[in-house]
Protein backbone atom coordinates (compact mmCIF):
# COMPACT_ATOMS: atom_id res chain seq x y z
CA UNK A 1 0.00 0.00 0.00
CA UNK A 2 1.42 3.31 -1.07
CA UNK A 3 0.17 6.89 -0.93
CA UNK A 4 1.88 9.14 -3.45
CA UNK A 5 1.63 12.66 -4.80
CA UNK A 6 3.35 11.54 -8.03
CA UNK A 7 1.83 10.11 -11.21
CA UNK A 8 0.84 6.44 -10.98
CA UNK A 9 2.41 4.16 -13.61
CA UNK A 10 0.43 0.90 -13.54
CA UNK A 11 2.74 -0.82 -16.02
CA UNK A 12 5.67 -0.29 -13.66
CA UNK A 13 3.68 -1.39 -10.62
CA UNK A 14 2.52 -4.52 -12.42
CA UNK A 15 6.10 -5.75 -12.66
CA UNK A 16 6.18 -6.45 -8.92
CA UNK A 17 3.21 -8.81 -9.27
CA UNK A 18 4.81 -11.05 -11.88
CA UNK A 19 4.94 -14.73 -10.93
CA UNK A 20 5.57 -17.89 -12.93
CA UNK A 21 2.52 -19.40 -11.26
CA UNK A 22 0.24 -16.49 -12.20
CA UNK A 23 -2.43 -17.22 -14.78
CA UNK A 24 -4.48 -14.11 -14.11
CA UNK A 25 -3.76 -10.43 -13.59
CA UNK A 26 -6.71 -8.17 -12.81
CA UNK A 27 -6.27 -4.46 -12.28
CA UNK A 28 -8.52 -1.57 -11.43
CA UNK A 29 -7.77 2.07 -12.08
CA UNK A 30 -9.90 4.92 -10.77
CA UNK A 31 -9.74 7.87 -13.16
CA UNK A 32 -10.86 11.45 -12.59
CA UNK A 33 -14.13 11.94 -14.49
CA UNK A 34 -15.23 15.24 -15.97
CA UNK A 35 -18.50 15.14 -14.10
CA UNK A 36 -20.11 13.90 -10.92
CA UNK A 37 -23.69 14.06 -9.74
CA UNK A 38 -24.57 16.18 -12.75
CA UNK A 39 -21.90 18.82 -12.13
CA UNK A 40 -18.97 19.48 -14.46
CA UNK A 41 -15.74 18.79 -12.64
CA UNK A 42 -12.62 20.87 -13.33
CA UNK A 43 -10.17 19.04 -11.10
CA UNK A 44 -10.00 17.07 -7.89
CA UNK A 45 -8.05 17.43 -4.69
CA UNK A 46 -7.28 14.39 -2.55
CA UNK A 47 -6.53 14.79 1.11
CA UNK A 48 -5.01 11.69 2.66
CA UNK A 49 -4.03 11.09 6.25
CA UNK A 50 -1.11 8.94 5.29
CA UNK A 51 -0.15 7.10 8.52
CA UNK A 52 -3.62 5.65 9.00
CA UNK A 53 -4.36 5.28 5.26
CA UNK A 54 -1.25 3.13 4.79
CA UNK A 55 -1.96 1.07 7.91
CA UNK A 56 -5.60 0.50 6.90
CA UNK A 57 -4.62 -0.23 3.31
CA UNK A 58 -2.19 -2.90 4.49
CA UNK A 59 -4.98 -4.44 6.58
CA UNK A 60 -7.27 -4.48 3.54
CA UNK A 61 -4.58 -6.22 1.48
CA UNK A 62 -3.83 -8.71 4.25
CA UNK A 63 -7.56 -9.41 4.50
CA UNK A 64 -7.77 -10.05 0.76
CA UNK A 65 -4.77 -12.41 0.89
CA UNK A 66 -6.54 -14.35 3.63
CA UNK A 67 -9.92 -14.49 1.86
CA UNK A 68 -8.58 -15.43 -1.58
CA UNK A 69 -5.71 -17.64 -2.84
CA UNK A 70 -3.65 -14.81 -4.33
CA UNK A 71 -0.04 -14.57 -5.40
CA UNK A 72 0.67 -10.82 -5.24
CA UNK A 73 -1.33 -7.70 -4.50
CA UNK A 74 -0.65 -4.01 -4.41
CA UNK A 75 -2.57 -0.74 -4.19
CA UNK A 76 -1.44 2.83 -4.77
CA UNK A 77 -3.52 5.92 -4.06
CA UNK A 78 -2.79 9.48 -5.10
CA UNK A 79 -2.86 12.52 -2.87
CA UNK A 80 -2.98 16.16 -3.90
CA UNK A 81 -4.35 17.88 -6.97
CA UNK A 82 -5.49 15.72 -9.90
CA UNK A 83 -6.75 16.65 -13.36
CA UNK A 84 -9.43 15.02 -15.52
CA UNK A 85 -8.15 11.67 -16.77
CA UNK A 86 -5.52 11.24 -14.07
CA UNK A 87 -5.29 7.89 -12.31
CA UNK A 88 -6.30 8.38 -8.67
CA UNK A 89 -6.01 4.80 -7.51
CA UNK A 90 -4.62 1.54 -8.84
CA UNK A 91 -5.22 -1.98 -7.54
CA UNK A 92 -3.38 -4.95 -9.06
CA UNK A 93 -3.80 -8.62 -8.22
CA UNK A 94 -2.22 -11.81 -9.58
CA UNK A 95 -3.37 -15.36 -8.90
CA UNK A 96 -3.35 -18.77 -10.52
CA UNK A 97 -6.92 -18.45 -11.79
CA UNK A 98 -9.07 -15.51 -12.79
CA UNK A 99 -11.96 -16.01 -10.39
CA UNK A 100 -10.03 -15.03 -7.26
CA UNK A 101 -8.19 -12.21 -9.07
CA UNK A 102 -11.47 -10.53 -10.04
CA UNK A 103 -13.03 -11.07 -6.61
CA UNK A 104 -9.99 -9.81 -4.71
CA UNK A 105 -9.46 -6.74 -6.91
CA UNK A 106 -13.10 -5.76 -6.42
CA UNK A 107 -12.92 -6.46 -2.70
CA UNK A 108 -9.82 -4.31 -2.26
CA UNK A 109 -11.09 -1.23 -4.10
CA UNK A 110 -14.44 -1.46 -2.30
CA UNK A 111 -12.71 -1.61 1.07
CA UNK A 112 -10.20 1.10 0.22
CA UNK A 113 -13.02 3.46 -0.67
CA UNK A 114 -14.84 3.05 2.63
CA UNK A 115 -12.06 2.39 5.13
CA UNK A 116 -9.10 4.63 4.31
CA UNK A 117 -8.99 8.20 5.62
CA UNK A 118 -9.04 9.81 2.18
CA UNK A 119 -11.24 12.70 1.12
CA UNK A 120 -11.77 14.33 -2.22
CA UNK A 121 -12.76 17.87 -2.93
CA UNK A 122 -14.28 18.44 -6.32
CA UNK A 123 -13.59 21.77 -7.96
CA UNK A 124 -16.37 22.50 -10.42
CA UNK A 125 -16.30 24.34 -13.73
CA UNK A 126 -18.99 26.58 -12.26
CA UNK A 127 -16.46 27.87 -9.74
CA UNK A 128 -17.40 26.34 -6.41
CA UNK A 129 -16.01 23.23 -4.74
CA UNK A 130 -17.31 20.48 -2.48
CA UNK A 131 -16.05 17.67 -0.34
CA UNK A 132 -17.56 14.51 -1.83
CA UNK A 133 -19.82 12.44 0.46
CA UNK A 134 -20.08 15.21 2.97
CA UNK A 135 -23.01 17.47 2.15
CA UNK A 136 -23.74 18.20 5.76
CA UNK A 137 -20.25 18.62 7.10
CA UNK A 138 -18.64 21.27 4.92
CA UNK A 139 -20.77 24.32 4.35
CA UNK A 140 -19.68 26.75 1.66
CA UNK A 141 -20.31 29.77 3.83
CA UNK A 142 -18.71 28.29 6.90
CA UNK A 143 -17.18 30.56 9.47
CA UNK A 144 -14.11 29.98 11.53
CA UNK A 145 -15.07 30.56 15.15
CA UNK A 146 -12.13 30.99 17.47
CA UNK A 147 -11.55 28.06 19.76
CA UNK A 148 -13.49 28.54 22.96
CA UNK A 149 -13.31 25.05 24.24
CA UNK A 150 -13.00 24.33 27.89
Amino acid at each position, binding site marked *: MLITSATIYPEELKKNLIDRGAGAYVSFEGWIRDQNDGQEVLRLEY*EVYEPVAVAEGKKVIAGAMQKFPLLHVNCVHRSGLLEIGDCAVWVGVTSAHRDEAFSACRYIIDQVKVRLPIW*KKEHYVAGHSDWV*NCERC*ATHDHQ*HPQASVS
Partner: protein
Amino acid sequence: MKKNITVRYFAGFREHAGVSEEEVSLAVSNAGDVFERLKHRHGSEEPLGHCKVAVNDEMADWDAVVNDGDTVLLFPPVAGG
Protein backbone atom coordinates in the same frame (compact mmCIF):
# COMPACT_ATOMS: atom_id res chain seq x y z
CA MET B 1 -12.41 15.19 35.50
CA LYS B 2 -11.08 16.98 32.46
CA LYS B 3 -8.59 15.39 30.10
CA ASN B 4 -6.07 17.17 27.95
CA ILE B 5 -6.63 15.97 24.41
CA THR B 6 -5.07 16.84 21.08
CA VAL B 7 -7.76 16.94 18.41
CA ARG B 8 -7.03 16.79 14.70
CA TYR B 9 -9.56 17.79 12.06
CA PHE B 10 -9.56 16.60 8.45
CA ALA B 11 -11.04 17.79 5.15
CA GLY B 12 -14.34 19.59 5.71
CA PHE B 13 -13.93 19.41 9.48
CA ARG B 14 -10.58 21.20 9.22
CA GLU B 15 -12.01 23.85 6.94
CA HIS B 16 -14.87 24.47 9.36
CA ALA B 17 -12.64 24.60 12.41
CA GLY B 18 -10.09 26.76 10.62
CA VAL B 19 -7.29 24.77 12.22
CA SER B 20 -6.00 21.27 11.59
CA GLU B 21 -5.08 20.61 15.19
CA GLU B 22 -5.78 22.01 18.62
CA GLU B 23 -5.39 21.18 22.29
CA VAL B 24 -8.62 20.89 24.24
CA SER B 25 -9.48 20.14 27.83
CA LEU B 26 -12.70 18.17 28.07
CA ALA B 27 -14.62 16.08 30.60
CA VAL B 28 -15.19 13.12 28.25
CA SER B 29 -14.95 9.38 28.52
CA ASN B 30 -14.91 8.17 24.92
CA ALA B 31 -14.27 9.23 21.32
CA GLY B 32 -17.97 9.81 20.65
CA ASP B 33 -18.07 12.31 23.50
CA VAL B 34 -15.22 14.24 21.89
CA PHE B 35 -17.09 14.37 18.58
CA GLU B 36 -20.28 15.62 20.25
CA ARG B 37 -18.56 18.18 22.49
CA LEU B 38 -16.65 19.62 19.51
CA LYS B 39 -19.59 19.98 17.13
CA HIS B 40 -19.19 23.74 17.15
CA ARG B 41 -15.63 23.23 15.94
CA HIS B 42 -15.94 20.58 13.19
CA GLY B 43 -19.45 21.74 12.31
CA SER B 44 -20.67 18.28 11.32
CA GLU B 45 -24.34 17.48 11.20
CA GLU B 46 -23.54 14.03 9.91
CA PRO B 47 -24.55 11.16 12.18
CA LEU B 48 -21.62 9.64 14.05
CA GLY B 49 -21.97 6.46 12.01
CA HIS B 50 -21.04 8.30 8.79
CA CYS B 51 -17.83 9.61 10.28
CA LYS B 52 -14.78 7.81 11.59
CA VAL B 53 -12.30 8.31 14.38
CA ALA B 54 -8.77 7.31 15.19
CA VAL B 55 -7.10 7.50 18.57
CA ASN B 56 -3.31 7.88 18.49
CA ASP B 57 -3.21 6.92 14.79
CA GLU B 58 -5.22 3.74 15.35
CA MET B 59 -8.71 3.46 13.88
CA ALA B 60 -11.12 3.23 16.80
CA ASP B 61 -14.79 2.79 17.62
CA TRP B 62 -16.75 5.74 18.84
CA ASP B 63 -17.02 4.14 22.27
CA ALA B 64 -13.23 3.79 22.56
CA VAL B 65 -11.98 5.24 25.85
CA VAL B 66 -10.05 8.49 25.51
CA ASN B 67 -7.31 9.09 28.03
CA ASP B 68 -5.47 12.19 29.14
CA GLY B 69 -2.76 12.96 26.58
CA ASP B 70 -4.43 11.09 23.71
CA THR B 71 -4.67 12.43 20.18
CA VAL B 72 -8.15 12.09 18.68
CA LEU B 73 -8.48 12.29 14.88
CA LEU B 74 -11.92 13.25 13.62
CA PHE B 75 -12.60 11.99 10.10
CA PRO B 76 -15.53 13.20 7.98
CA PRO B 77 -17.16 10.60 5.69
CA VAL B 78 -14.34 9.18 3.56
CA ALA B 79 -14.32 9.19 -0.23
CA GLY B 80 -11.22 7.48 -1.55
CA GLY B 81 -10.78 6.13 -5.05
